C-alpha cells in the first residue's frame, strides 16, 4: 500500500513501505516526517508507525527531538502585532536572507497582506479624493504627448464613460477585500513556472512568499498615491522608483522561497510574458516615462 509523506507543510510524495524503510535508514526521511495511507484518520509521524520501528528508526523522544527543527526568525511568525509587522518589513529590506527560516503558513501571510492593505488604505482615500476616475486622469495626461501611439491609447481610454464615484468606491473596497486572495491566485502561474524550470517549491510556500513580498511592495509604493493630484508626476516618480522596489521584492521573494532572486525574477518575467499581457507593462512604462522625463527636462 502506498504511503504519503509530508514535511514542513510540503508533500514529499507517495512511496512504497520498502522505499520508506530505505529512506529512513539513509536519512532521506526523518522520524518526524508526517505520513498517511488509505484508511488512516490523520497524518502520523513515521517514528510512530510500528512497521518502521523495526527499521532502526530513532523512536525515542530524544531522537525525535534531535530531528532538525527550524525556528523562524521572522518577527511576524513569532507574534502578530503592528511592531512585528514593521520589524518584518525592515528584516525583508535589510536582511532578506533571514526569511529563509520562515514556516510560511498561508494564514500568517494572508493576515500580513491585509495589514499592509489596511495601512495603505488612507493613501487610497487620498487617491480617490484627488483622482476619482484614474483612467480619465491618465488619458488626459497621455493626451499631452505628441506620440500618435500614446494619443491612440488616450483616445481609447477616453471612449469609456466616466465611472460613477459610488462604483469607484465600491470597486476600491471590494478590491481591498479580495486583493490578497487575487495575489494568491497570481502566485499559481508562478508556481507552474517554477515547476517548468524544475524548481521544487511547494504551492504553500510560493503563495505565502508572494503575499509577503506583495505586502512589502504595497507599503513601499503606497505613499506615491499622495501624488495623485498630478498624474504625470505620479507615473514618472513611480516608474523611477519601480526598479529599486522590484529589487527589494525579488530579494525578499527569492529568500522566502529559497531560490536565487535572479531565477525568480527570470521566471516571473517569463511567466507573465508567456501567460499574460503584463509584458506590456515595461514597454508602456518606457513609452510613457521617457517622453515624460523629456518633457520635465524642458
Amino acid at each position: 500500500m502506498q504511503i504519503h509523506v509530508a514535511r514542513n507543510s510540503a508533500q514529499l510524495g507517495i512511496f512504497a513501505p520498502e522505499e520508506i524503510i530505505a529512506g529512513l535508514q539513509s536519512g532521506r526521511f526523518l522520524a518526524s516526517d508526517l505520513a498517511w495511507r488509505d484508511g488512516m484518520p490523520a497524518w502520523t509521524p513515521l517514528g510512530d508507525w510500528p512497521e518502521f520501528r523495526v527499521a532502526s528508526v530513532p523512536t525515542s523522544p530524544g531522537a525525535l527531538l534531535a530531528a532538525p527543527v527550524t525556528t523562524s526568525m521572522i518577527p511576524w511568525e513569532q507574534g502578530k502585532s503592528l511592531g512585528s509587522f514593521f520589524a518584518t518589513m525592515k528584516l525583508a529590506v535589510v536582511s532578506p536572507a533571514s526569511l529563509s527560516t520562515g514556516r510560511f503558513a498561508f494564514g500568517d501571510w494572508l493576515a500580513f497582506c491585509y495589514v499592509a492593505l489596511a495601512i495603505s488604505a488612507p493613501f487610497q482615500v487620498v487617491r480617490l479624493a484627488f483622482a476619482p476616475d484614474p483612467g480619465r486622469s491618465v488619458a488626459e495626461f497621455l493626451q499631452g504627448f505628441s506620440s500618435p501611439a500614446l494619443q491612440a491609447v488616450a483616445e481609447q481610454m477616453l471612449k469609456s464613460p466616466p465611472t460613477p464615484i459610488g462604483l469607484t468606491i465600491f470597486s476600491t473596497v471590494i478590491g481591498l477585500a479580495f486583493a490578497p486572495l487575487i495575489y494568491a491566485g497570481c502566485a499559481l502561474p508562478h508556481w507552474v513556472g517554477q515547476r517548468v524550470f524544475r524548481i521544487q517549491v511547494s504551492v504553500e510556500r510560493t503563495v505565502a512568499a508572494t503575499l509577503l513580498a506583495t505586502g512589502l511592495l504595497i507599503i513601499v509604493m503606497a505613499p506615491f498615491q499622495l501624488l495623485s493630484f498630478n498624474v504625470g508626476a505620479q507615473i514618472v516618480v513611480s516608474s523611477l522608483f519601480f526598479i529599486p522596489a522590484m529589487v527589494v521584492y525579488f530579494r525578499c521573494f527569492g529568500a522566502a522561497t529559497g531560490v536565487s532572486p535572479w531565477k525568480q525574477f527570470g521566471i516571473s518575467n517569463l511567466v507573465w510574458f508567456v501567460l499574460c499581457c503584463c509584458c506590456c507593462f515595461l514597454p508602456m512604462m518606457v513609452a510613457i516615462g521617457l517622453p515624460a522625463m523629456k518633457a520635465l527636462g524642458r
Partner: protein
Amino acid sequence: MLRLIRRPAYPGELNHELVWPAAFLGGAVFAWGWFLSGLQLPQCVFMRLTGLPCLGCGGTRCARNLVHLDFSQAFLFHPGFFLVVTLAALWTIYSAVFWIRRDTLRLRLFIEPAADRRLRAAFVCVLVVHWAWQCYYLTR
C-alpha cells in the same frame, strides 16, 4: 502520470477548498465591477509592435463573453483562459459540496515524479498550439 487522490490535509497544508474558491469569487466580483465601470484596457503593446497577439491577447474578450454567458465565443477568443475559469468554477462547486458534507478527505492532484518531464514538455507544446490558434483567430 496524473492522479486524483482523496486524503486528509496534513498540518500546515494550504486549505485549497477555502482559498481558491474565495480567490475565484473575488476575481469574478472584481471582473464584474471592471466591466460594469466600462473601463478599457489599452491595446497590447506586443500586438501593436509585432502585429501578432501575445499569449494573453483575447483574455479580456473571453472574460467579457463569459460575463454575458456566450461560452462558445469565450472559448474561441482564449481557450486557455476559458479552461482556467471552467476548472476554477468546477473547483468552487466541489469545494461547496466538500464544506456542506463536512468531508475530511480532500481531493488532490498528484503528479508522479517520473512523469514530470513529459508533463513539462506537454505544457510547453500546449502553449505553442494555443499561441498558433491565437495568431490565426485574433488576426483574421
